């Protein structure tokens, strides 16, 4: 009786289906295609929020606003010296700054100015402009949950992509670059 034999194997079939599902999900996590913690940003397609933040490397305590941002594609990079992944990310940011594909804007998130300045002096400064968000208020406006986080802003000032976690060549090539080159065509 094939029907009743099928019934006997039903638990095994269910197990195999779930095992297959979990394997696919785990594999996607491992290869960076899926992050169960990643949240869709509420800011995609919206203008970069306004801000008034002190410039990190300025002697006269200059305050920067949105009008101080350079033109063109921007990468808003939220970082901090207390953030381990930011150490990993920094080397790639230095490389990316040299290519000139984007101007990198640094938001030093809930950090100490002295430590941040020392970090930039030691590791190099990839930022066209770097500001200190000591209270994390601009971080709240961006919907940041930690560091590092990266926002791609188009020349019209619209946020096109949010990436939670460190940038590297792979992430840039797969997620960021197509948006920039796609818009240029």
């Amino acid at each position, binding site marked *: 009786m094939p029907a009743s034999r099928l019934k006997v194997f039903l638990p095994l079939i269910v197990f195999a289906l779930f095992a297959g599902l979990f394997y696919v999900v785990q594999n996607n996590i491992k290869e960076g295609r899926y992050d169960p*913690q990643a*949240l*869709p*940003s*509420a*800011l995609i397609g919206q203008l970069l929020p306004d801000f008034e933040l002190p410039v990190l490397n300025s002697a006269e305590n200059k305050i920067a606003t949105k009008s101080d941002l350079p033109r063109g594609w921007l990468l808003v990079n939220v970082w901090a010296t207390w953030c381990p992944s930011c150490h990993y990310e920094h080397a790639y940011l230095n490389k990316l700054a040299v290519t000139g594909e984007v101007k990198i804007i640094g938001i030093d998130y*809930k950090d100490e100015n002295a430590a941040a300045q020392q970090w930039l002096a030691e590791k190099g400064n990839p930022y066209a402009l770097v500001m200190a968000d000591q209270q*994390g208020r601009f*971080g*709240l*406006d*961006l*919907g*940041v*949950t*930690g560091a590092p986080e990266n926002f791609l802003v188009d020349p019209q000032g619209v946020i096109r992509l949010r990436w939670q976690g460190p940038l590297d060549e792979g992430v840039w090539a797969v997620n960021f670059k197509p948006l920039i080159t796609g818009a240029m065509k």
Partner: protein
Amino acid sequence: MISSSLMRSVSSFRLIFSSFLRGSESISSHFMDSGFRQNDARSFFASRVLRLAFLLLLFISIPSFAVIEDREFANPVDAQRYQNLIEELRCPKCQNQNIADSDAEIAEDLRNEIYRQLRDGKSDKEIVDYLVARYGEFVNYRPPLNSKTVLLWSAPGVLLFIGVLIWWRRFAVKKIPADNELSAQEQQRLRELLKANHPSGDQS
């Protein structure tokens, strides 16, 4: 000025106090009926101490689950609103906690922000909208009913309906067949079987 942790204590205290009141009332009426005896006093004391100890246990365990904060509010209503908000908003970092229970730094920032906005006189809706605009509908443990959340809201009802349907099909509709009389042939066979198993025939 009432702090939020104090508010919680006040409400627990009210519970203790009211149950005490009820307890002592019944005991005092008992005294009036039978006059004062030492035995009564001892049991009265023991029951009161026990009740107090038991209620104190409840009292201690309530606030220990939440992050301990000391905030000043202009009035108890604001303190309660603050408590409700942080319990209904979800931490965007540690994703299965509300921001009241989470120790994550972002949860603390969000609590500070909610507190600041409450003090600035913002309404609950304005505060929730502020957070949803930044963190998305995700932060709302009580999402509004719309085309995106209709599945979420209807799932419990649909699942319950399916469950009831299955239960009904399995148990409720098992009708007894209308024709449950044995035929003459079957009666004969039944008698033979019974006879074979119980030759003495004294059992039916």
